[in-house]
């Protein structure tokens, strides 16, 4: 009897795969809560902008010289991470590591360029409500990018150690979902702070 029970146990599945992993709904919940956070922050921007009008903006036409290419950098990094995920799914280790590595490097590049963008601003966190919102929202986003780069770096390490396979790569899928979320949030932040002033004025 007991022997039979042990045999049955041994025949059970030995680990969740892909989106059956408990981490997947966990990541979806995290994305939902973080989306709400950014939605509230961006709502604050539009609420004040509508009330105050175009005169509220310290720079009616924000420069896109750094932010525009930086947006492209983040979009390309997302594509690289997706390509890397396809690599692990199809057992192409080189593609997996190259995509993931490129995604990490582009994420770091985004942070560096964003630091220059911050430095170029003529207003500060305590200059005005616009300044507070700008640095709070972009700061929150930068914090998410820092976390995302850290997560991708750990996943890269696990990949180098050979912990993933075409059947078991839930951590890669989960990390990839977070990185795409960070990318989509930036599109909303970029459209709000860099593109909407052109429409409002």
């Amino acid at each position: 009897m007991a022997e039979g029970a042990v045999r049955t146990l041994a025949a059970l599945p030995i680990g969740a795969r892909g989106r059956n992993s408990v981490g997947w709904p966990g990541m979806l919940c995290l994305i939902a809560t973080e989306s709400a956070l950014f939605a509230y922050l961006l709502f604050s921007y539009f609420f004040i902008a509508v009330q105050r009008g175009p005169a509220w903006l310290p720079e009616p036409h924000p420069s896109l010289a750094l932010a525009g290419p930086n947006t492209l950098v983040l979009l390309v990094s997302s594509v690289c991470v997706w390509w890397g995920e396809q690599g692990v799914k199809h057992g192409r280790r080189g593609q997996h590591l190259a995509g993931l590595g490129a995604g990490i490097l582009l994420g770091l590049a985004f942070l560096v360029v964003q630091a220059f963008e911050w430095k170029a601003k003529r207003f500060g966190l305590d200059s005005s409500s616009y300044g507070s919102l700008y640095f709070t929202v972009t700061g929150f986003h930068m914090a998410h990018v820092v976390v995302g780069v850290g997560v991708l770096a750990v996943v890269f390490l696990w990949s180098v150690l050979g912990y993933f396979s075409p059947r078991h790569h839930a951590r890669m899928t989960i990390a990839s979902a977070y990185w795409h979320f960070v990318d989509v949030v930036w599109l909303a932040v970029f459209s709000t702070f860099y593109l909407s002033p052109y429409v409002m004025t």
Partner: protein
Amino acid sequence: MPGDTTSPFWLALGLAIAFAGALMHAWWLAGAGLALCAGALIVWFWPRQVRGAPQAAEPIDG
């Protein structure tokens, strides 16, 4: 089900230290707390073989 681990304790301790550091404007302490959080999460999520699993040919995750 996930196995036994002390990682949530270290994560909670790291968060407490990070917030205490931020409240006291001791940014080095806040940074140390966040580093402890990161370490606890990495250890917690580290892929492990399931003990007693039938000779898995590849690491298990989930």
